[in-house]
């Protein structure tokens, strides 16, 4: 990347990729003392060519690389690709499979948001207590994943035509038990984070993103809903079983970092509600329809949208009649939110110390933005 010119009297600091909080990207900051004048995100450090890889795999083989995009949220990411395949090949999915997919997606969403809280607490300078609490509580979900899918991470469970296996015996009761446990724990997180005076001081009125700016810049997910815009693919274009499930789209009017954090908090509440509904009301029937292992597609293009934990993910798939997709274009939520992040210093006053807080408020996953 050619670096933009620096104005006089401005210092350019490199925040990453070897910085303790930056993850795997490099962000250039033009600072004048503590005030940040400009943010330049230098993405692409973890580019792995997943889109190109998908062209060389059959439809089934492609599920494995695409789940590597966001390890904390593999259920949602994988479902985006799988619904695209199903649309392209015209495969019907049994109802029970759709419900199980929704269950898996909501568990994945909680898993991912828990990670986001931990990092957000760490970014404000919390000694890693909250990060370790969330990590510990994630094991409840990971155990459920393990029992359902056989893997704690990256479970290639949803397949074109349904899900791999039916729910194990007595799984519904365990889900409800886990939901009760997590509800109890979330009261602790709410006290430790949202109601903590210093945390409030760090997050209130920081990096305000007005609704019109959020829409203009193409924000998505909790960032958009934190600006008060109720947009959720699960409601607008229901996929899986979301049309039959009862949940609210969470919005917060405050538009700041705290609003985005609160949106994640409340979304977890909705996810727990969905998990409970699914555990109580999951319909019976088969979980899988027969699909040939190497299906032949019809020429054409499809677009599938799913709501991942970080926002809307689009899979735009072109097929030419072969056993592989001709081209897969993935619109990733982190990349969209990174554009917003770059503009935040112009929209609102951002200080040097706010940078880790602000970047974690968009919940970045650089493997997702770089693909």
């Amino acid at each position, binding site marked *: 990347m050619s670096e933009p010119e620096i104005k006089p009297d401005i210092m350019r600091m490199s925040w990453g990729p070897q910085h303790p909080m930056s993850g795997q990207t490099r962000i250039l900051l033009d600072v004048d003392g503590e005030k940040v004048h400009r943010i330049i995100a230098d993405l692409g450090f973890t580019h792995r060519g997943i889109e190109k890889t998908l062209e060389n795999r059959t439809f089934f083989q492609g599920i494995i690389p695409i789940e590597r995009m966001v390890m904390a949220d593999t259920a949602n990411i994988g479902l985006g690709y799988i619904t695209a395949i199903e649309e392209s090949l015209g495969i019907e999915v049994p109802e029970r499979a759709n419900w199980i997919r929704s269950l898996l997606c909501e568990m994945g969403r909680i898993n991912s948001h828990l990670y986001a809280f931990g990092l957000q607490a760490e970014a404000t*300078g919390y000694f890693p207590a909250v990060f*370790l609490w969330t990590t510990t509580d994630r094991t409840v979900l990971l155990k459920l994943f393990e029992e359902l899918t056989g893997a704690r991470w990256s479970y290639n469970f949803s397949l074109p035509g349904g899900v791999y296996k039916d729910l194990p015996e007595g799984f519904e009761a365990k889900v409800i038990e886990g939901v009760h446990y997590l509800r109890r724990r979330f009261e602790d997180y709410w006290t430790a984070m949202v109601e903590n005076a210093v945390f409030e001081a760090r997050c209130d009125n920081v990096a305000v993103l007005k609704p019109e700016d959020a829409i203009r810049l193409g924000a998505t997910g909790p960032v958009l809903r934190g600006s008060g815009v109720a947009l959720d693919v699960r409601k607008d274009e229901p996929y899986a079983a979301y049309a039959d499930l009862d949940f609210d789209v969470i919005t917060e009017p405050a538009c700041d970092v705290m609003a985005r954090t609160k949106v994640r908090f409340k979304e977890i509440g909705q996810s727990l509600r969905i998990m409970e509904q699914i555990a109580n009301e999951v319909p019976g029937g088969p979980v899988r329809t027969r699909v040939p292992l190497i299906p032949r597609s019809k020429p054409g293009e499809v677009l599938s949208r799913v709501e991942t934990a970080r926002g809307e993910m689009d899979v735009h798939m072109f097929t030419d009649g072969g056993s592989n997709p001709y081209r897969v274009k993935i619109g990733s939520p982190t990349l969209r939110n990174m554009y917003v992040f770059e503009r935040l210093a112009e929209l609102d006053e951002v200080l040097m110390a706010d940078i*880790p807080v602000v970047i974690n408020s968009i919940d970045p996953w650089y493997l997702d933005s770089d693909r």
Partner: protein
Amino acid sequence: MTMISGLMLWRLVVTCVYLPTELIGKWISDMINWGLDLLFHLPAYTVEFLALNSKPLLQVLILPGLAFVLVFAIIAVWFERKFLARAMLRVGPYYCGKKSGVLQVFADFLKLFMKEIIVPEGIDFLFFAAMPILVSTVPAMALILIPFDQNWVLWDIGSLSMPMFFAIAGLAPLIPIFAGWAANNKYTFIGAFRVAYMYISAEIPLVLCGAAVAIMAGSFDLLKIVEAQKSMWFAVPQFVGFVIFFLGVIIEAERTPFDIPVAEVELVLGWRTEYSGILFGFTMMAEYVLFQAWSLLFITLYLGGFNGPNIFGNITLSHIFWLLVKFVILVVLIILIRCVFPRLRLDQMLKLGWRYMTPLAVINLALVLVMKLGGIY
């Protein structure tokens, strides 16, 4: 004439050459005698020296001195790691030292000692390397003023002791500023200026609070301040000052929520970024030494200093015991704060310092004056 002048010349030569030779010879023989004397009587002299100076030596080496500083740093690091680990649902250091992990601190120190000191390019190495050593030794100097008992003050300078404490401890923030500048790095540079901002906003209310205490006690002498608190601790009549000074102690020791100059999520490690190996170890130790010096002053000014019931039969021993008990309780409290609060931003901290702490310290001073003039206290 010639004979006389020749004789005089001879006398002159003899005087100029012989006399100094004789003097030097005498001096050398004296030195040898003295050296032999010292050699043969060294044990006796040592015993005599120790007998005459046993208390100051004990003070320098053990209580406010070397052993106290080192042992406190070791125990505090170990306790902090274990204690915070519990808050995080972890166990903490476990293997080194029979499952309590107490030897982990020594192991870490040894590791730091063995590590290479990486020096950034194009800097003044001596200046760069001197700063971590100074930053841990200068605040330790302030400890010599703290009274542990009427008879246990290492440097008793009467009514100058409190101003001297502020003078010595006031030197401490200069060193991180130099260190941050010396490392020639953007992170250390910003960290250094954060130190400057933070200490200026914190030290003015601290000095004002100290002045209020001195007015109430009627003296700047730390010993007299402690004696004035025999009936009631100054924390009660000067509650505002007590709270301000408590915050000030946390700010001066750069501890959470005021560890702004070393905020690792934005500045890597602030002014300490470029230090490695044992130099980094010194900067870590500085945090605890500052913490120790300011907490002891805080106890002396507000929590009755060494006052306490005589439980050991020996008044000096009991006084030292009570001061250490108060110190330990304060340390645990300040470490506890670390696991429940995130870090404040610099502008918020400055707002706290200038907009709340300084005016409240002035009000506290005024209240003390009213109490003193009204004869209530």
